[in-house]
């Protein structure tokens, strides 16, 4: 024990140091390690969560992209189909309209021809009649001055038959 006194060991001092260090231990544990380890753990947890979330988001993004591509493809396919069918329809309609127009035109032309023919006949008939009257008048006037009754009659008949021959 003599050596311990030489080293300055004194029970009271020893106890004071023990109490002192015990206080330090508990104070540091309560006010130092606890909040710091808590914040460290929290951060670790948060980083893990963030990483997990990032993975999830990436996955979702890929899914969405895939879906978008599919939708776009479908849309373009539909659009193509619609355009093709519209083109066909248009072509058909055009053909129909053209056909109709041609038919109408032909009909009209035929009508017009008929009419012209009828008019022509009508005019010919009228001309015939008028010419007959005129000739009769002329013959009447000429014959009335120069010819005898018999000759008059004969000439009239001849002329009439002649005219009739010309007309028919």
């Amino acid at each position, binding site marked *: 024990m003599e050596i311990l006194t030489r080293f300055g060991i004194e029970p009271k001092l020893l106890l004071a*140091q023990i109490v002192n*260090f015990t206080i330090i231990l508990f104070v540091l544990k309560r006010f130092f390690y606890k909040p710091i380890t808590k914040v460290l753990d929290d951060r670790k947890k948060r980083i893990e969560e963030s990483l997990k979330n990032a993975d999830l988001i990436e996955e979702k993004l890929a899914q969405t992209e895939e879906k978008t591509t599919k939708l776009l493809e479908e849309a373009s396919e539909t659009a193509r189909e619609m355009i093709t069918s519209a083109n066909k329809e248009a072509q058909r309609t055009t053909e129909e309209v053209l056909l109709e127009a041609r038919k109408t035109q032909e009909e009209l032309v035929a009508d017009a021809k008929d009419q012209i023919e009828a008019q022509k006949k009508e005019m010919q008939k009228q001309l015939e009649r008028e010419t007959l009257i005129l000739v009769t008048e002329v013959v009447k006037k000429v014959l009335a001055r120069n010819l005898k009754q018999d000759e008059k009659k004969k000439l009239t008949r001849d002329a009439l038959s002649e005219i009739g021959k010309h007309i028919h």
Partner: protein
Amino acid sequence: MEVTLAAEKLFNIGALPVTNSLLTTWIVTIVLISFAILATKKVTAVPKGLQNVAEIMIEAIQDLVSSIAPDKAKIFTPIIASFFFFILFGNYFGLLPGVGTIGFHMEEHGEKVFVPLFRSINSDLNTTAALAIVSLIATHFLAIRYLGLLHYIQKFISLNPIFLFVGLLELIGEATKILSLSFRLFGNIFAGEVLLTTASTKLFAFLIPIPFYFLEILVGFVQALIFAMLTLVFMTILTAKSEH
């Protein structure tokens, strides 16, 4: 000027004799706790200032403890870290200028002796012995907590004569742990104090002590680490379930 083995008594508070090393211990305690409180005053998810330092230190110790005792790291870390920080702060505080050099002359046994006001805390055997005792008590307390009283006693006392002898040896070993822990720390830091005092008083006070100061910075860290590591190893061994 000489460094005495025992810490010098400054004054008395009631029955308690206050030595210069006890006074320094109180100052170190205040500094350490102030640092702890300042660092954790505003704990934020994004660390700032002192919180960064605290996080780095605690995370390093936590990793160290986890590598040796993964399942008990949560219980061990505060104790190990406290030993480490207290010893480290004490050692470095003892290196500050003024510690060991500021003092006054005192009449003792008819002789005039120089009494420094502050003394590196671990160059007093009272401090290191107190640390060793706390370390041992904590170790045994945790051993009882983890093993239960029966298994704890079985570690030392057995009906088998061979294991009884082994247990007896282990009991002696536990007692020598206090001696080895306290004297190792005390010896290293006291030697450092003597070395620095000699270098700056007997040799030359300028430039020459500088390399020794770097040496002491290293020693101060290493000794703190050794004490903490040994405590950690003792705890791990004693709280482990024995084979027999």
